[in-house]
């Protein structure tokens, strides 16, 4: 029987169950490790605005592999007191496929049917949040199956999701598509404890370490 310390330490291993997020559970250990980051504040602001309407919405939570998209969704669904994702369908990992011979692009095209060119204007109040790597998003909208999603592609291009420019992640009135991109935050900001952030926007967390 391993000692409790080793058992806790094992959770930090790359192969541990805790190193991959799913939306079904969010245990005390993950809650303990959770750090409030600016991107969470912006996503919550966006969710609050979306929830005040009953409009059909697809939120793209974009970024790179391993930056915490799935963790954030799981936290908001399972551990946050505001329950902002209660009315959302969660799509936690856009690199997954639903059957052995299908690709993630096939599966995305299936799951995003309510938001294709034919259906996205049908305002049935359906809401989905999609955690997606920018590379996967690009592959999808440029793929053959992505041709049925030209409105989504137009949104992605208009908002320059693939550019290196940092843009504010704000709610867009009357748009079915919304987004928050982890790429719009400087790396040091990811370490910033927001409640201690100074007026100047300096990264207090890093300053304290220095």
């Amino acid at each position, binding site marked *: 029987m391993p000692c409790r310390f080793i058992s806790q330490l094992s959770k930090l291993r790359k192969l541990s*169950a805790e190193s991959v997020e799913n939306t079904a559970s969010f245990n005390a250990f993950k809650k303990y490790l959770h750090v409030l980051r600016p991107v969470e504040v912006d996503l919550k602001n966006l969710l609050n605005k979306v929830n005040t309407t009953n409009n059909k919405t697809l939120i793209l939570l974009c970024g790179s592999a391993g930056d915490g998209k799935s963790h954030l969704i799981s936290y908001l669904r399972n551990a946050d007191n505001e329950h902002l994702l209660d009315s959302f369908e969660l799509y936690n990992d856009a*690199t*997954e*496929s639903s*059957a052995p011979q299908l690709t993630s692009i096939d599966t995305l095209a299936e799951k995003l049917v309510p938001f294709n060119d034919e259906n996205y204007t049908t305002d049935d109040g359906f809401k989905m949040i999609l955690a997606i790597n920018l590379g996967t998003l690009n592959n999808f909208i440029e793929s053959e199956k992505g041709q049925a999603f030209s409105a989504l592609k137009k949104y992605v291009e208009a908002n320059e999701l693939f550019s290196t420019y940092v843009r504010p992640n704000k709610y867009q009135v009357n748009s079915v598509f919304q987004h928050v991109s982890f790429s719009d935050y400087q790396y040091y900001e990811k370490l910033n404890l927001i409640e201690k952030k100074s007026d100047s926007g300096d990264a207090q967390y890093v300053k304290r370490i220095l």
Partner: protein
Amino acid sequence: MLNEFYKYIANNTISFFQSRSPVIRPGERYCLRLDTEEMVKGVDLALREKTTIDGIQGQFQYGSVYSTFTIKMSADLEIVVASKINGMTDDFLATLRNAELTAKRFPILMITHSPIDTITSGTGDLAANGMPFHAASIIAKIKDDIRATELSPADRILLEKELERKQGDRFSDKSSLFEYSNLLTVLGRGYVEKSDFAAFDLLYDDSLSSFSEEKIRGRLEKNHAIFEHIDRIFRHGNIADALEKEKAKRSSDPCN
């Protein structure tokens, strides 16, 4: 011939999990990355056969879309084996990696030949340092197995020299299991066959076993040198010129 190689990998994979059984935690994910789909198929089949013979095979169903087998460790612990074969996409392996497999959260072993990192990220690579198929672990295991297997002195020395040669070869990919396939095949079989000599860069020597250990070493070294000389000529040289030179050398030195 490769069947023995696949069996060897399967046996060591099962031994690895059995030895770790007390410390394996629910939901852990392991990955074995091989070179080709053929290798993945071979290892998958060898694992199926071995688990059937040992009576430790279970079944796993993922919804209605996928089924595979498990390696039973205990009443509450089974390792789900998911091999990238029969057209399975990397993306579906990612689905299995992310999922909670059964209420008991069975660990998963993914066997893949994919060069991309999508699958190996967030998994324990069985070829990583400290794992059973890391180059250092394979070499140590082969050394142990050469000692433990009941081999004739000639076969034992041949395998020892081959292992030394592999370790000294700057151009071989020591991280690839396939590099050790010939050695592992012979160890799995328990003896050296005539056809193995060429795989070890040797000319067949049917009288090897009649010499003392020291002489066997000497003969093998000389054999290697001759094989490499001939091999070099066949690959890069002019065979007719080389034979002429050899003839001239022998005429000037009849003892050679």
